[in-house]
């Protein structure tokens, strides 16, 4: 053990702590804003089961594998599972939420451009987990 002074290390530790405090504060603030679900978002019920996704829209229609939304609108997903845990993921829009049997998890998004994006399962769910995929179709507003 040495008696030399250790101030460089304390400065270094202080810098790291400050950096972490900054990262934490930014993350807290961003998450707070992101999680705020806008009023009047259209509800889409998403159900995961081995090994496909079912989408039920507000008007009661259902689609399997393909999800149809309109550009400029906000959507709230209510995510359920019928068997094991899955994870509903539209990577291009950073939509990621586990589908847990016995629970309803929510997440929202608002597509900002017409186009197609991949939907996939991001939680291991067995045999065909690797191909539990779908497509998001963002279309022009119907009106």
């Amino acid at each position, binding site marked *: 053990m040495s008696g030399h002074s*250790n101030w460089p290390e304390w400065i270094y530790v202080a810098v790291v702590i400050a950096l*972490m405090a900054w*990262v934490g504060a930014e993350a807290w603030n961003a998450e707070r804003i992101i999680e705020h679900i806008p009023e009047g978002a259209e509800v889409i019920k998403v159900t995961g089961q081995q090994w496909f996704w079912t989408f039920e829209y507000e008007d009661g229609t259902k689609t399997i594998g393909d999800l149809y939304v309109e550009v400029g609108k906000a959507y709230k997903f209510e995510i359920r599972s019928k068997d094991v*845990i899955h994870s509903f993921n539209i990577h291009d829009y950073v939509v990621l*939420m586990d589908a847990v049997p*016995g629970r309803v998890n929510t997440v929202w998004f608002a597509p900002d451009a017409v186009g197609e994006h991949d939907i996939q399962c*991001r939680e291991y*769910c067995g045999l065909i987990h690797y191909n539990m995929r779908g497509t998001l179709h963002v279309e022009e507003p119907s009106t």
Partner: protein
Amino acid sequence: MVLELAKPRPIWQIMFSTHHTDIGLLYLITSLAFLFLGGSLALAIRIELFLPNVEGAGQLIADSMTFNRIFTVHGTTLIFLFIIPFASAVGNYFVPIMVRYKDMAYPKLNAIAFWMIPPAAALVWLGFADFTWYAQPPYSIISAPGPAADMWIFGLKILGVSSVLGAINFVITILKCKHPDMSIGQVPLLAWSFLVTSVIIIVAIPTFAAALLMLLTDRLGVSGFFNPAMGGDPIAYSHLFWFTFHPEVYVLVLPAIGMMYEIIPRFSRKPIYSYNSGVFAFVMLALVAFSSWGHHMFATGMSFTEKTVFMVGTLAAVPASAMHVFNFIATMWNGRIKFATPMMWAVGGIALFFAAGAGGVVNSAMPLDFSTHDSYWVVGHFHLFVMGTIAFASIGFVYYMFPYVTGRMYNETAGKIHFFLSFVGTILVFFTQHVLGLYGMPRRIYDYPPIPEWIAMNQIASVGAMIIGVSMAIFLVNIIYSSSKGKLADIHDPFGLGGKYYYPFEAKNPHH
């Protein structure tokens, strides 16, 4: 002296011994065997993912079930049958010497703890379960095929008990058996890492042990703790699991840091920059290890408040980790460094430790985690720890102990080539996997759609894995050949560094 190969002994003398260096040798050989076995599974995974399966191309593994079993056993093997037993090997050789005691506190218990590993390993390997290394219900209850799943559960149960027995032994050896003239503040940092690690094990493991039992009875259908069809909650399992296994990641990494604390000052020919801050950072990590398990569960539907608490708890671990890095660099600063093989592995490991920690901060910032969670980013993140940091420190330590264990020197050039290839390979595989995660590739998939970026990144990663494979073959040949044909080592200073080594020279084997 306990020079194993320079003075051969019949194998049963080592197997039935309770002496700490013999148990250390058993742990050492077992753990290295599983490093190579588990590593081969990784190569199979990487070959399979080199190309997507378009029209028959790129198929090494015939079906996804086999693939799922392979990555499950790969992870289980390297964590529980390589990293942990390897740390026990080092602890057995060095801790009694460092606290100046004749053996471990309870030699028979020590032997029992070791001999629980082979049956557990047999259960894991003969079963070949498919439910990933965290056996998440309800999949593990309603979907995972038996008897593989049940064998895995029993195997892990045994390994947990073995690890707790080992931990009790280390705590007593260090606290109660250290030489009366020695204060706790004089115990070398390597031994400190075992003290802290053992305390974490004793506090953390029982939770998972309970969860495993509940999982088993759920599988048998007599309970429904984690089965929603019977009113249970699978997320409860996640909490129990991660309450054990986030602290467990420090159980894996702290002995590796301890090994670096042994190598870095010795090969820099300077005392450690600050012993006190090393101890402080160890103790801090043990405490904050318990405040962050929820960062594995951000996407399970946690409330904003829960996520915030666990994010803060996770970020709290960063300063203490960073203190170790500072300590290493400050020790090397102005040192007369000798870049022999063990030193290269240690320094490479520190560089990768830093990179791994930086990636971890990204995971913990909650909005970013929704990009990285359960993608290949996470695979890259923790492999920079388990491979880049822990395996690097461990392999460096194999080279460091080699002259003591065998009485001979390994081939230095081959050791350096091994390092360079592994270092390049590790960067190619695991940095690339971070990028793959950002492109959105989920982990644990047998096949993927032919997205050009995914193909490119997967190919780089697979080439990197091959490079690591080649380097490990060189390693294997080097240690096998050198242990019988290498040139005799100057056992009192094999690396020509001067100073006193903690090799267990004086340790007298009662069986001799």
